[in-house]
Structures are given as structure tokens and as C-alpha cells.
């Protein structure tokens, strides 16, 4: 498979009025092949959403460094006018809250057809494609519901509409930022399964941003774990669940209540560091039960593990004995 998206050494920082610069995302690299589904997992403040939004050139007030190549074209530093052509037709995006992503004063039909109309497609043809896309997404009686307004739709239906808007221009990559977090549990499962089916059918690549480790496997095949603005682990979904190598990943997985286990949850002490006070060594070292002097001084780079995953830890259990 060919590389669709390649992010190399991406740094995102914000510059305050007094010139002080805070690094929010620190040298993140990853790539997505055509048709591949990757989850970016992390807690709030990990930089996962910023990274995703940077792919579409949102957040213009942020300073980007490094490179984001989409089908070989560099997106960092691309003028807004050209970026607009990539958004929608190349990369589509679905946001967390469908109600704030939709215009309450426009009909569903007008909103779903808007990307096509902007690209010069005739009203009639755009309407027909919107109807087909909505039906593909399980919106029943799409023809008449396109005349309805967002408030007449349930949360799950609204999110399908938002997905339809993102997909109608047939992008090759869909960035889905917590697409089901605002939905009820049953609806969440339906929407994720639907996204997986559509991605399979269309050969669509998906970058799935989530804080919920439980749903990762519903959509993604590969996982990138972010913590405090850096990637700490990457690998297949199987490796993520069965043999997580980074102490943070293991802590994260142990902190989730399970239906088949009654033992006490193991909770990681403390909280992620604020961007301005991230340690110079391993970003997880202040919370890490294994941390040594070396971890505090020297930030580990990602390296391969036996499970063919990559981990940024000096003492990844696959590589070396964990110090007592």
C-alpha cells in the first residue's frame, strides 16, 4: 500500500503576546497508508486533537514546524486558498459535537450539499449525491429528511449528517475527532461500526482520535499513543491490548473498569504535566513507577520491540529487565 499521509517531526507551538513560546506537540511523526485506519489515543492535553487539526490547517494561530505530506504535497506553510481545496475533497473531518458542527438555520440538505456546491456541482446532482450518501449512512427516508433542520434529528442522526458532509466529496482520508463521545452508548457502537463498514467499502483511510481506549478496536487497526505532546507507543491494535510496552499505555489499560475482572483498578498517581512544565527527560517519568535517573535526564526515542511495536521507553520490558 502506498503512503497517503506522512507526518514528520511535527511541532506545534503557541506564541503568547509577550513572545513566550509554549511547545504543545513535540516532534511527532507517523504515517497512514491508503485505506488504513489508525487511532490516535491520548488523554486531554496530550496533543492528539491539535495534531489532527493541523492536518487540515485549522488553528492558524499555532506555529507549525516539520512536515505534513498528503499524497506527496506539503501542507505545512500552504496558503489558505490551496488548503481549502484539500479540505473536504482530500481530507474530511468529523468533530466531536454534531450540534455545534451543524448550522441550526440551514436544512440538512443544504448543509450536506454545501461542499459539492462550493466545488461547482449543480444543485440537482449535488442533491442526488447527498441523498445517496445519507442513505449509505443509514439515514432512512433521506429524500424528505433533507428538508428538515438539525434540531429535528437525534444526536446519532446528527452525527451521521456530519459524517455525510465529511464524506460527500469522497476524501481519501477521514479525520474523526472523538466522533462518538457525545453520543449514548448504543448509538456510539452503531456509528463506529458504520464508519468501519463505509471505510472498508470505500477504501477510505481514517485517523480516529479518541481518549476512550475501549472503543479503539472498534475502528482502528493500528494505534498511536500520545502523552504530553509526544508519541510514546505505536503498534497494532493487538499489540496495544495484549502486550502494551510503555508504562503509560499499561497504566491506561489497567485503569479501565472491565466486565470480566473484579480486582481493584490500578490507578496511575498524579496527572499529565502542563505543556510549560514538561520534563526534559522522559515526559512520563514524574508519574512512572520505574523511572530512574536516566529517564529524568534523557528522553527516550521510539524504538522497535519484539512485538513489532515501537515504544519510547528506556526500560521497555521487551528490551531489558525492568529495574527493581
Amino acid at each position, binding site marked *: 500500500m502506498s503512503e497517503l499521509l506522512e507526518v514528520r517531526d511535527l511541532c506545534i507551538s503557541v506564541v503568547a503576546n509577550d513572545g513566550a513560546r509554549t511547545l504543545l506537540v513535540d516532534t511527532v511523526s507517523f504515517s497512514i497508508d491508503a485505506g488504513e485506519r489508525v487511532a490516535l489515543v491520548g*488523554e*486531554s492535553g496530550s496533543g492528539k486533537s491539535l495534531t489532527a487539526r493541523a492536518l487540515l490547517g485549522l488553528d492558524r494561530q499555532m506555529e507549525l514546524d516539520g512536515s505534513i505530506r498528503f499524497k506527496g504535497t506539503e501542507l505545512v506553510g500552504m496558503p489558505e486558498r490551496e488548503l481549502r481545496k484539500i479540505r473536504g475533497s482530500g481530507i474530511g473531518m468529523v468533530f466531536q459535537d454534531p450540534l455545534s458542527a451543524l448550522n441550526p438555520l440551514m436544512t440538512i440538505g443544504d448543509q450536506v450539499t454545501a461542499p459539492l456546491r462550493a466545488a461547482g456541482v449543480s444543485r440537482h446532482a449535488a442533491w442526488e449525491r447527498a441523498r445517496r450518501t445519507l442513505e449509505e449512512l443509514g439515514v432512512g427516508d433521506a429524500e424528505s429528511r433533507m428538508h428538515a433542520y438539525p434540531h429535528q434529528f437525534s*444526536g446519532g442522526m446528527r452525527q451521521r449528517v456530519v459524517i455525510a458532509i465529511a464524506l460527500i466529496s469522497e476524501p481519501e482520508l477521514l479525520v474523526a475527532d472523538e466522533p462518538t463521545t457525545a453520543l*449514548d*452508548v*448504543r448509538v*456510539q*457502537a*452503531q456509528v463506529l461500526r458504520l464508519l468501519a463498514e463505509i471505510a472498508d467499502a470505500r477504501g477510505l483511510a481514517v485517523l480516529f482520535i479518541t*481518549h*476512550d*481506549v*475501549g*472503543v*479503539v*478496536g*472498534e475502528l482502528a487497526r493500528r494505534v498511536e499513543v500520545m502523552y504530553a505532546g509526544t508519541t510514546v507507543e505505536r503498534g497494532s491494535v*493487538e499489540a496495544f*491490548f*495484549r*502486550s*502494551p*510496552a510503555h508504562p503509560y499505555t*499499561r*497504566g*491506561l*489499560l*489497567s*485503569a*479501565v*473498569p*472491565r*466486565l*470480566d*475482572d473484579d480486582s*481493584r*483498578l*490500578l*490507578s*496511575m*498517581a*498524579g*496527572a*499529565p504535566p502542563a505543556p510549560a512544565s514538561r520534563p526534559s527527560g522522559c515526559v512520563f517519568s514524574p508519574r512512572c*513507577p*520505574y523511572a530512574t535517573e536516566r529517564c529524568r535526564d534523557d528522553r527516550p526515542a521510539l524504538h522497535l520491540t519484539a512485538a513489532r511495536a515501537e515504544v519510547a521507553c528506556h526500560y521497555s*520490558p521487551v528490551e531489558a529487565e*525492568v529495574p527493581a
Partner: protein
Amino acid sequence: MITVSHLHKRFRGHGRTPVIALDDVSLTVGRGDAVGLVGESGSGKSTLLRCLMRLERPDEGSIEYAGQDVARLHGRGLVAYRRGVQMVFQDPMGSLNPMMSVGSIVAEGLRIHNRRRGSRARTARVGELLELVGLNPDHADRHPAAFSGGQRQRIAIARALAVEPDVLVCDEPVSALDVSVQAQILNLLQDMRSTLGLSLLFIAHDLAVVRYLCEDIYVLKQGRVVEHASREDLFRAPAHEYTRQLLAALPSHAGLRPVNQYALPPQQKLES
């Protein structure tokens, strides 16, 4: 401790057919029990809570606390109820006054309910409470903004525990928190329950979280209790179709546990 019997509540819209928010809901929270209430949006969870807190008056049915009808409480009886049943809300930022120091937030209930006379005694108690929930007592003069989400939820719990309640009502207390912090708060609630002998009424949409804390579970759907069962029965043999749907919607956790060779280090090192 709390007995809810045949509670009904309807809301009338503008000339439309009334919305039935609660339809014959009954539930019991015994002393020291941990009772879970599961439901999606629109299930009536919030209306039930609002009735419990006397923010809403039920159309029919009653809520009894320590043998007395809550709707008819007044004066001292009402004060005793307000002390005895404390709440922890979903969003700790929205439920903590940003202008008050953490110390005065936690001390407020002590003052109102006269649990400790004199500011020195109150300050000492605030220190104890902060320590109990895992915060540094020296931070009592800081404001909520200086704390992380999980720490704020600890403050909210300390405030609720300050007046030595019998029942702690928690409305989605961890759903706004990050996963690694969720576990800290769930463990804290479990510890508080066992060390203080509290009763817990725990409202959440996440079945796995409810299962972790509660032995007795009610499933609410569109204002009705569709299933009431013990933890064991509910998860082993869910009786109602809706409960089965909720369980089926949970992500499959197969293989979610790290295999043994990657077992975590001794618990004490990880516990906060």
C-alpha cells in the same frame, strides 16, 4: 436510608402532549449500600436526581429518608436531610465556586451545619478532609482553577464528606475525567464508602463503571425502571432486552488485559 416509591413526574410543553419523565419509579438505598442507576440521555436520571434534591416536586409517589417524607420536610428536618444526603456533580469546575478558596469551599458546609464551632476547629477539619481525599492540606488557600480536573473532583468529594452525610449521590462523577484519573476517583469513592460506611447512589451511563462500584443496579429507560438486579445477575443474565442491548454495545474487552509478563509493579507504587 432512601426509599423512592412509585414516583411520577410529567413536564408539560407548550400545549403539546406532556413528556413523561418518570413513570412509576421505585428504588431503595439501604444503609451502606452501593446502588447504581444506569440510563442513557432521556431516561429520567436527572429528573429523579432533581426530585431527590427537592429541586423538582414529583406529581405522584414519595421519597422517604429515614422514615420521613422528603416532600414534607421543613425547618430542622429539612436541614438534617440536606446534611445527610450530599451530592457530587459531573462537572467539578461548574460545581465549585471559582472565587472561593478550596478551604472555604470545604468549610462552608461545616459552618452552615454547625459541625465544627470556631474557625480553628474548622480549619483543622478541612485539613483532615483534604488529606482524606488525597490532596495536600497545605493547598487549602488555593482556588479551584489551580487544580486539575481529578483534583477538583476530589475537592467536591471532600466538600460532600465534610458534613458527615449518610448518603452520597454521585451524578456521572467520572465521565468528565480522563481515564487515568477516573480510576483514582472510583477507587477513592470505594475507599470512602468502606471506611466511612457511606451509602452510595451512583448515576452513570457507563455500565462497566457502575459494575465496578455498585452491588445493586437499576436500569432506567424512558422514565421506567426496566430492570433491577444484583450486579451478578445483571451481568450474567440480563433479563430485559434493553439491558442486553446496552451490554452488547460495550466495546469488546477481549484481550484488553495486558498479559502477565507485563504485569504492573506493586499496587502501592501506582496508587495515589
